[in-house]
């Protein structure tokens, strides 16, 4: 089981601890054994410990410490945002976020929909059971 995702310049990572929790960032430089310089289009470039990063599959083609404009252009060329939102990891995060922000009324409507869906599934299952019996 070799490693597949490396800390390298251009690697897209997710910050998983601290004030910037949940933010997608690009590794822009490596400071020392433990820290990386990290940047995102809507963030001030800052240092982050490797332990606070979760590496993703995505990579962006940039040179060491690019200017903000170059970084933004490179991220758009690599289509980071769309690829992330389509990936299963990204989709799970979006689902978690919507679930957390559900209104009391939304939760009620969700419950009604779940009941309907379960009823349909049960009907189909009953039909299949009848056929196999």
């Amino acid at each position, binding site marked *: 089981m070799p490693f597949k995702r490396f800390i390298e310049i251009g690697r897209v990572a997710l910050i998983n601890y601290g004030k910037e929790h949940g933010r997608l960032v690009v590794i822009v430089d490596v400071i020392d054994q433990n820290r990386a310089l990290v940047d995102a289009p809507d963030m001030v470039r800052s240092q982050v410990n490797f332990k606070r990063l979760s590496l993703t599959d995505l990579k962006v083609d940039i040179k060491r410490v690019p200017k903000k404009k170059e970084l933004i252009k490179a991220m758009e060329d690599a289509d980071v945002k769309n690829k992330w939102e389509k990936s299963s990891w990204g989709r799970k995060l979006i689902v978690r976020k919507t679930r*957390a*922000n*559900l*209104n*009391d*009324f939304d939760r*009620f*409507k969700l419950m*009604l929909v779940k009941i309907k869906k379960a009823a349909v599934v049960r009907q189909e299952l009953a039909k299949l059971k009848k056929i196999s019996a």
Partner: protein
Amino acid sequence: MAPKQRTARKVSRNPELIRGIGKYSRSKMYHKRGLWAIKAKNGGVLPRHDPKPKPQAPSQKPPKFYPADDVKKPLVNKHKPKPTKLRASITPGTVLILIAGRFKGKRVVFLKQLPSGLLLVTGPFKINGVPLRRVNQSYVIGTSTKVDVSGVNVDKFDDKYFAKEAEKKKKKEEGEFFESEKEEKKVMPQEKKDDQKTVDSALLKAIESVPDLKAYIGARFSLKQGMKPHELVF
């Protein structure tokens, strides 16, 4: 119009340069205030008004009793209580969740805040059995769901509307002590039933226009497995 056309002037004519130092000197201010004009009108001296004759106070007899110790009088307190501050999330038309009391868990529509600070609230009665009722803000969760209450007129409701009727005092006689007192069943006066109907009819139209809202208001709220109240968004 009558002589006084300008508004009573309360701002000083001497702008402050720094605290304690005005822009104009004494002589300049004398001129600005027009004291020379007032004096000229009055023949060289400032006008003098004789004190108005005070109405004669009735002569008081010397008191018969002087207290032995000097008792301190408490300071006068003219503070008038205001109705409780309404939370920003609670506006007319908000759906509230009642947390305590007979109707705990019921989702209810907020109408207005009464002068005592309590919230006026209605089921509507047809949907969940909660009548026009007063409720304390502390026992209520404000959701972010709003119902359109523009068609409802709540001006006639205030705290006196909800006051209990004074019970007639019954003289306890020996015979009645041992017999069980017949308790009269409290009947809702027809006027209150009509008030409920008028308020609810306007609300029902607004509620039925939103899909699922009627079932939502009819259902009770409860915490299920895994729901953390401090993390829930209402």
